[in-house]
């Protein structure tokens, strides 16, 4: 299949930002981006980098300062609200809690653009609502009230509402912001599945690097030059653009772990570790936090890790003692 046909939303020389009496305040400039069907795209950026502004602009809520947004090759500003609502649906960060609204009623609001003046649901509408609730796994809550749901369940209901709206493009602003790790993973998994199986173009904003790296088919990375680097997550890691985008003093990207960590300029005691890879990884993490530098070179301080994953043992070279926890080991090191 040709690449052109997969692209559903694109921008040309787009500049987004705000206008006030003092003039224009561009947040992101000269963006040439495209969103493809069947892919989960993550818009990644630090707080205040302009994630929401960009999403509002390409979603047609806010006017661009320069350039153009195209939906199916049509300028988005020329599409009326009702037609647009059949092509693009949103999940916003606003915490909605109409206590008396049931899950079913909220999801059925997604049919708004399709129903008659009174909003009466046809059998087709009801079938689509049923499918949307089934796909997001919320059928069992159908008659619960929104106020009774957990944050994770509520987010799924909001996603079900966009499915009921039956659009090819779905935008989600920080969909995992208040969720714990299992819920975050579940939402990302769900969105990927919807993108692939439903052949939808899904764009979500996040500042959770690990989630984006693990789940995105495509990354839009807001860099420090008010622009966006676009590409496969792994490519952006390996060409160093990801590290550049999040560059801060005392922050360093760990290419092995795929996360950032603090660096310290103080001189550190060097330690050499020996043993199983996994046990070494966690011991290293604890030692680095405590201010030691783990080095592969020979050192005065050597720790041999033995035992297995559930029952590890640490042996310290200079006093020839074995410890059962890293805590005990660190106490000995600090007393030295």
């Amino acid at each position: 299949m040709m690449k052109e046909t997969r692209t559903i939303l694109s921008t040309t020389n787009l500049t987004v930002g705000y206008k006030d009496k003092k003039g224009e305040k561009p947040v992101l400039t000269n963006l040439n981006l495209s969103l493809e069907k069947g892919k989960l795209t993550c818009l990644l950026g630090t707080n205040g980098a302009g994630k929401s502004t960009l999403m509002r602009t390409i979603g047609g809520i806010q006017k661009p300062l320069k350039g153009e947004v195209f939906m199916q090759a049509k300028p988005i500003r020329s599409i009326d609200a009702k037609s647009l609502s059949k092509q693009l649906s949103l999940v916003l960060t606003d915490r909605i809690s109409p206590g008396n609204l049931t899950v079913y009623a909220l999801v059925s609001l997604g049919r708004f653009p399709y129903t008659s003046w009174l909003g009466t649901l046809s059998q087709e509408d009801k079938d689509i609502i049923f499918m949307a609730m089934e796909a997001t796994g919320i059928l069992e809550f159908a008659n619960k009230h929104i106020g009774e749901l957990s944050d994770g369940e509520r987010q799924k209901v909001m996603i079900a509402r966009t499915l009921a709206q039956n659009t090819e493009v779905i935008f989600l602003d920080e969909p995992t912001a208040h969720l714990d790790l299992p819920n975050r993973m579940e939402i990302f998994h769900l969105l990927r599945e919807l993108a692939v199986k439903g052949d939808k173009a899904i764009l979500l904003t996040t500042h959770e690097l690990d989630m984006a790296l693990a789940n995105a088919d495509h990354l839009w990375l807001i860099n420090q030059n008010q622009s966006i680097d676009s590409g496969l997550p792994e490519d952006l890691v390996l060409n160093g653009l990801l590290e550049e985008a999040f560059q801060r003093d005392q922050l360093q990207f760990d290419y092995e772990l795929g996360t950032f960590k603090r660096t310290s300029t103080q001189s550190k005691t060097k330690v050499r570790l020996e043993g199983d890879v996994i046990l070494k990884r966690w011991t290293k993490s604890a030692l680095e936090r405590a201010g030691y530098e783990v080095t592969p070179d020979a050192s005065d301080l050597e720790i041999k890790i033995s035992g297995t994953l559930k029952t590890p043992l640490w042996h310290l070279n200079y006093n020839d003692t074995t410890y059962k926890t890293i805590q005990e080991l660190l106490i000995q090191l600090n007393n030295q």
Partner: protein
Amino acid sequence: MNAITQGKRLRAKSLILLGLMLIVLFLLDIGLGSVRIPVSEVVKTLLGQQIDNSGWQGIILKIRLPRAVTAILAGAALSLGGLQMQTLFRNPLAGPSVLGITAGASLGVAAVMLAAGTVTTTFSIRELGVDGSWLIIIASTLGAALVLMLILGISFKIRDNVVMLIVGLMVANITIAVVSIWQFFSNPEQIQEYILWTFGSLGGVTNEQLGALAIIVVTGVILTFFLSKTLNALLLGEDYAQSMGLNVKWARVAIIATTSILAGAITGFCGPIGFVGIAVPHLSRSFLNTSDHRTLVPTCALVGGILMLVCDIISQVPGSQTVLPVNAITALIGSPIVIWIIVKRKNLKASF
């Protein structure tokens, strides 16, 4: 999914029950008062049959029937005004009186009563008949619309609903202050008329005026029902509503216009009646446990009518010659209802 159709049946039953309650209270309201008339005689008279006591017949047809109908119209109109304001501002304490709509209507009425001199005192307005009633309705609706437009204009700048409510209260205060200054420079007789009007009365509407009032309120109720789908979309907030294809600006104007017509007309004829507009939407939501405006609109109209009839019966103090101002009774009954709902449900805020 079966539970959903079950819920529908339950709602239909509730509406029928409320309708029956309304009819019973309507007959009681006509029967009770300074002179007690048996309900059977009331029914006979309303069905157009002659009854033995022609005095009763006169009381029923000339005084009590218009008053009871006015009570139902006022209750329905104010409740629907409150429902729309609460949904639009997504605030449980919003209502026509809180956001200054009633104050605006008062300003309109004050302008007619105080400024135009003796020609337009309440007495002479009643003498003017239908033309005069239109004058009062137009003045109070324009007053209500003026304040609402002001609030609407400010609400474009402010997105926070609590702040918006405070702004509404301040605008109401300014409006009341303007009326006070106006009163200060007016004749005592004119002020007396105006103050009597502020006590609220369901009995001041004559049969001819009732026709005008009924047309306006029924139109407003129908318009509100037409806005059900729009109001449902607004439950999720304006951004979501817009993303679902709703023209939010137009919707705001339509809702505010409908509310001004409903609240403005009732305030013009019956005086500023408080609390019904806030309490009834909560009662209805609590009663039916739904946020769907297609159900809430008819329910609010019915519950509003029922509550106003109860207030009217109490304000007549059955068996005595005393008539209390209805505005005081609605507050006496309405406030405990609001407190009771807050205490019982503890999730009043979660409605929005």
